């Protein structure tokens, strides 16, 4: 074997490599796009789950939105206060963290009796199309329990509980609102952390009918309405609805509800909050 036979291709490849490298170098100089270094930094700080709760296509897009378009810096729901502070440092702004939001399922489901066997596409959306029975379970307003929101949740914060109703793990919930969008029965709502009094029912049927459908259905008995010292709770279309502008979260309605469907989740939230702060500090 001739030594030339080895050297020739080596030289050719080397020259080729050098030329292409040069072209690349020139191109990168010529077409260089100035990127604000802060964009990168903000992207680093963001949680990187791309949940879209901020309204941008993802974390990188939000970072660009903050730096280039001057978007609000407190839009990241999963990141909450810690992230807002970090972004504020990078951007040289003052932190104005909003209260974290949590998804709340407005159905307790206890006693919702499945009435029939369902056969078909097992997503909530598909189960609520026209032509299927209007009331998927006994209650035509309650959680279908097919778990479309569980699939949609980027944080794995939702699961079905023993009542076949979706439950939210607030340790994991980042308040991104993906579940709110997918629920065909509009049962999920984003509530600020401080909103601890929740009506866990959406049944708009008259008392007798609602009662027949579910043990935990609002029967529009008016007890909570009478009890409320702030005129913050009303029966709207056969259902107790809290006006949170007036509600002082005193929790009196919770005690009188015969169906236990008005709930006070203050204590749970308190513990969780302490937990979370501890964890964040540990990090």
């Amino acid at each position, binding site marked *: 074997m001739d030594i030339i036979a080895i050297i020739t291709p080596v030289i050719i490849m080397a020259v080729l490599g050098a030329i292409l490298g040069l072209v690349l170098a020139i191109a990168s100089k010529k077409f260089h796009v100035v990127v604000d270094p802060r964009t990168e930094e903000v992207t680093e700080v963001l949680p990187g789950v791309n949940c879209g709760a901020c309204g941008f296509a993802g974390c990188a897009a939000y970072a660009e939105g903050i730096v280039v378009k001057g978007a609000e810096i407190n839009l990241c729901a999963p990141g909450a206060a810690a992230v807002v502070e970090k972004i504020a440092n990078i951007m040289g702004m003052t932190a104005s963290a909003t209260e974290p939001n949590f998804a709340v399922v407005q159905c307790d489901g206890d006693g919702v009796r499945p009435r029939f066997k369902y056969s078909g596409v097992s997503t909530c959306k598909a189960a609520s199309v026209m032509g*299927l029975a209007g009331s998927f379970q006994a209650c035509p307003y309650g959680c279908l329990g097919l778990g479309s929101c569980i699939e949609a949740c980027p944080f794995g914060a939702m699961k079905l509980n023993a009542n076949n109703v979706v439950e939210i793990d607030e340790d994991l919930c980042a308040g991104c609102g993906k579940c709110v969008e997918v629920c065909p029965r509009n049962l999920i709502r984003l509530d600020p952390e401080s909103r601890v009094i929740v009506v866990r029912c959406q049944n708009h049927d008259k008392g007798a009918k609602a009662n027949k459908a579910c043990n935990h259905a609002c029967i529009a008995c008016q007890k909570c309405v009478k009890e409320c010292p702030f005129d913050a709770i009303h029966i709207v279309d056969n259902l107790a609805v809290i006006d949170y502008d007036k509600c002082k979260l005193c929790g009196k309605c919770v005690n009188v509800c015969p169906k236990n469907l008005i709930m006070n989740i203050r204590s749970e939230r308190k513990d969780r909050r302490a937990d979370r702060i501890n964890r964040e500090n540990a990090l």
Partner: protein
Amino acid sequence: MNDPKTNYIVSAAPHLKAKDSTESIMRNVCLALLPAFLVGFYVFGWYAMLITLISILSCLVTEVICQKMRGIDVTISDYSAVVSGLLLAAVLPPNVSWWVPIVGGIFAMGVVKQAFGGLGSNIWNPALAARAFLQVSIPTQINSPSWPMINEKRKELLDRLRVTMDGSFGEYIKSTANAVKDGGEQAVDAVSKATHMAGDKLVDAVNAGADNGIDVISQATPLTKLMTLSADQAVVAKGVTAQQILPDYSTLVWNSFLGLEPGCIAEVSALALILGGLFLLYKKIITWEAPVCFILTVALITWVLPSQIYIPGEATGYTEWFSGPVLLHLFGGGLMIGAFFMDTDYVTTPMTRKGKVIFAIGCGVITAMIRMYSSSYPEGCCYSILIMNTCVPLIDAWTKPRVFGTKKSHA
């Protein structure tokens, strides 16, 4: 609660369902393959049966493992893995090593089917893709016109046979050399004589083998014969037809049709495969478009176009126009199993009738081209179907049916 209504089924319309299910269809495909396999087992003996069983088991086990790994329900009860296992065994030679169907099954189910998303999502026919994989990985096992070497006794006998064959081969080379001197026609005579002699000796040998308790002898498939013969006799082949080169042509055709010529396990008998195919047509599991177009295209091209012939060390030659050995092309090799079982595979073929026609014609053209003009492969069915499998999304996009109430456009 004893409310009977908890038993009521609520589902979206329609509430009636046709009887055919995925399982019943797959079961019927297995049934349709049965005659071909029976002939194969009869011709090749228990080892072919063993290979088939290994192939099915390998496919089933791989499917189960993959589905467990993917964390989805195990669906081997839908028979689709069994069908793949059967089809893989169908296109394997009967004398491959025992591990070949295992490797093939793992490749077919694991790589070709499950890696692409399981039933319904694979791009290529698992069995054929596995065969192609084996063919490039271990060509000696798949390609060579090999002899089954199962026990010493048989091997001895086969050695003797080969010697006999060699003898006749030498004779035939000699006569060919003479023929070159004497000219075409005489050569043809000589060739026919030589082949007759070889054929006679072979028959004798087979009889002798049978006397010695051996059921069968595998040798080159008819298509390989066609190819090697044309190569060796190319010098005389200018201006002649394949039928003339293969003097025992009609016997060969009959043998391939009935299953007396060597081939892959379930490819041997065109008759059995056609019966299976007709059963599928009768059961409305397949439609006529794909098999008919595939077979007609191959028949037309192999009849019309001249075959290429390789002259060692010289230029290539061609046989005459309109004279191809059509029947041998139809019945020898894998065309029948390809036409009835492979290009009617649901998952990897187009959805529309028009698409099926295009698909089958494409398969036919590529098969014929490979068979007639490739120097290394006597058989083109496997690759032609795999190539056309790749084009299926494109064909589907082109042949969207015309929506009711829209004017005829490019469709």
